[in-house]
């Protein structure tokens, strides 16, 4: 018996799998309620993407793909090309061009670029001596900035910051000296006014209404006001599945994607939200555990990159729907609708399992 359970334990990191499955289960339930008044086929499509993600995940868990540095470079290159193609042949939605149509499917190259960047940076930084020198520090920043810049031009401010967060987490764990980090932070603050000029008007509006959503309650402030009302009105136990009025009566915009957490807050209350938060905590801490357990510097950095990716997006998304952070379009990992995101997140999970396998074996 002991042998068998050990064998099963070796196979996969079950708490991690459980947390991931828990999140997609919650997502499917919330999606069916949110999508019922948007597009009832969404739930079905969402489920297909989840299954596709699970299959990819299982496949990748039994390979050592994460170790192939040439592959990392190729995928990174391809994702950059796709990002360049987006504004040229992409599909325009909600004022931004973020999708590429391929064989009738809409793909978001930015999701691939996130994984590719983590992959490439983990290879690059793992080969550098510790503490990190200035040269690799700057080169790695350049590698992260390339996709970030292209995404920023789409325009997609939220996703662009994801690359920044990933890079920051990776160089931190790769041993970048504190003074590099503080210099960069200082420089960033100094350039903030310049950055303000690079923003589109609607992006500025969103940042301004974050300070006070009631400046423009029916315009830029509308989403965050309605979202806070939805979450707050859920109270302790929520209004019940399919019974959230903000959701069902269309007061919540984008509720199947970026604002799905508001639907959970409204229909399942504080209790439901805590379950989601706890599941995320379990997921992320298990991932960090894998990073700590592995002896391979590249595997460790790769795992950290995934942790930062998911953690940052989850925090920014939940923060924005609760009015803690400005509204920038960042989907909630494993919950928001989005095929590319779902498949690539599960791929990342599969790759983490393979890193873990290498340490356990």
């Amino acid at each position: 018996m002991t042998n068998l359970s050990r064998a099963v334990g070796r196979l996969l990191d079950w708490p991690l799998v459980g947390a991931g499955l828990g999140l997609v289960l919650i997502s499917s339930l919330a999606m069916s309620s949110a999508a019922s008044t948007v597009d009832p086929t969404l739930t079905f499509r969402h489920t297909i993407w989840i299954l596709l993600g699970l299959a990819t995940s299982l496949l990748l868990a039994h390979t050592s793909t994460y170790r192939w540095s040439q592959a990392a470079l190729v995928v990174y290159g391809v994702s950059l090309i796709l990002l360049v193609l987006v504004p040229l042949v992409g599909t325009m939605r909600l004022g931004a061009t973020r999708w590429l149509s391929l064989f009738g499917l809409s793909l978001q190259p930015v999701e691939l670029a996130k994984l590719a960047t983590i992959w490439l940076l983990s290879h690059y930084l793992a080969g550098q001596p510790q503490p990190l020198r200035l040269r690799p520090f700057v080169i790695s920043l350049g590698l992260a900035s390339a996709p970030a810049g292209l995404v920023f031009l789409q325009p997609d401010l939220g996703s662009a910051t994801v690359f920044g967060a990933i890079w920051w987490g990776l160089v931190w764990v790769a041993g970048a000296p504190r003074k590099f980090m503080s210099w960069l932070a200082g420089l960033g603050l100094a350039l903030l006014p310049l950055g303000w000029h690079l923003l589109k008007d609607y992006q500025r509006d969103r940042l301004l209404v974050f300070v006070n959503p009631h400046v423009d309650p029916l315009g830029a402030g509308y989403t965050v006001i309605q979202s806070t009302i939805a979450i707050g009105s859920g109270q302790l136990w929520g209004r019940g599945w399919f019974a959230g009025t903000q959701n069902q009566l269309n007061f919540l915009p984008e509720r199947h994607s970026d604002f799905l957490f508001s639907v959970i807050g409204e229909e399942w209350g504080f209790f439901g939200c805590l379950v989601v938060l706890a599941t995320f905590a379990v997921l992320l801490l298990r991932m960090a555990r894998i990073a700590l357990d592995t002896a391979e510097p590249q595997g460790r950095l790769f795992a950290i990159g995934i942790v930062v990716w998911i953690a940052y997006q989850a925090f920014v998304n939940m923060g924005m729907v609760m009015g803690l952070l400005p509204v920038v379009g960042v989907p909630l990992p494993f919950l928001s609708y989005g095929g590319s995101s779902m498949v690539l997140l599960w791929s990342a999970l599969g790759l983490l399992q393979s890193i873990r396998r290498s340490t356990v074996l």
Partner: protein
Amino acid sequence: MSHRIVQLQAVLLLACGLLAVRLAHLQLLRGAHFRRLAEQNRLRLIPEPPPRGLITDRQGRILASNQTIFRVALVPQDLEEASAVFANVSALVGRPAQQLQREYAIQRSLPFLPATIVASVPKDVALQLEQERWRWPGLLVKPETVRRYPRGESAAHLLGYLSQPTAEQWPRLKSYGVHPQQLVGRMGVERMFDDVLRGRAGGVMVEVNHRGRQVRVIGRREPEAGAPVRLTIDAELQALIEQSFGTQPGAGVVLNPTTGEVLAIASRPAFAPEAFAVSEASAIRRYLNDSTAPLMNRAAVGAYQPGSIMKLVTAAAALEQHLINPGTTYACPGSLTIGDRAFHCWNLDGHGPLTLPEALMQSCNVYFMQIGRRVGLAKLRAALDAMGLGRRTGWLLEEHTGHLPKRRLTEGEVALLAIGQGEILVTALQEAVIASAIANRGSLIEPWVVKAVADRPMTQRAPSHRVRWATETFEAIEAGMRRVVSDPAGTGHRAMSAHISVAGKTGTAQTHLAGRPHGWFVGFCPVEQPRVALALVAEHGGSGGDLPAAIAKAICEYVAATDL
């Protein structure tokens, strides 16, 4: 660098904690607040105003009901070819385009608020406009239920009118479920019985989506119609008096001398209450600025000098004190000198020797000044007071108390008071009560005008005072009044009718406008068994023996022909 990973884990937990705190703040601490906001988001109350109660006359003839009107309005932000729209509407409605443009300029406020340019158009015009509407963006035809007064200006002052509640009224009305646009009674019966007539607003609670579109109906409360109010007035008699006045300003009150029921209460000039109901701005402005004050109820609020009709009271006071008897004669040489001042009789040649009935019939000033002086100020004032002058009659709407002198008067002023001149003001309502008291042998009735509310009869109040004159006094006064009308030389002979016996007294009160006195007629009929008592005043309308006496005749003949 595993310690940096541990630090990262710490940051992660911290972020989770921060989110949890925010969730607790939103959902637990302020959850109830946000729940309320969510409910406000989705729930809309669409008020359904109740139909207002009917007002009818004593026979059940409708004085106030409800109707659907069609307003023509323009929405400023949608208006494209303004001049074309004005030209077309002008052609269909039959009003000059300039007038419509002026109205639009006055009415427009916010770009999305419709500005009414024609308060009410007939249904067929509304349909025509509705058909053409697609060609003229911004044009709007809105159906609306408003108060209807089928008899136009008739009894306008009694019925009153509706308008939006005032700032003072609003807090009280709000608790009764009145919404700010709902019109409430602002005058007359409409105001006095507003609570009864108004009914209770119903409404539909609907669930709406983010666009404000109705998703489903959650609940509905039927509006409760207002209760009807039945008045004591006779609409035909009312109209008869109003028409008889024509353009002459004045007032008339007809009472049942036994019960105190007001059979008619007219005031001219009048207004059309419907103008307020449909908010016809130009008409309302005209009423408010009109120097003849058409909104004032002259019958109850108009205080005039009574002139010779006061001689009835002077005579009664002298009879009661046994200073004279009906046969006592006084000579009228045409004037009476008091101190160094001569007071003229209206007949400058003098009436010669007169008995009381003759003096009443000819309304001799010298006769009554003489007996008035003998009665003295104190007793004269007591007699006027006993007739209810200087006090409210008990009329439920607004009324003027009139005026009696309180100070010491000179001898000349006493003489003038005896003939209803100088410092004395009365209302037609008070005079009608005096006429009733003479007709019913002493009961000072309270005039009342509401027969039934919500089909429950109103209980009638007992007369508040009695005038304790001897029967002989009443008979002498009545005999005089009878002769005023019946004698060809009587000042009120114009009231003489072949169909009914009429008793009356004319009055012609001098005013500051020379040659334009107020003309009065008070009286009752039929004399043997009085069914109505009346008081009529023509403001600056000349002699009481002319128009007022003629109207009295018309009233009495109506009474003779009708079973009131």
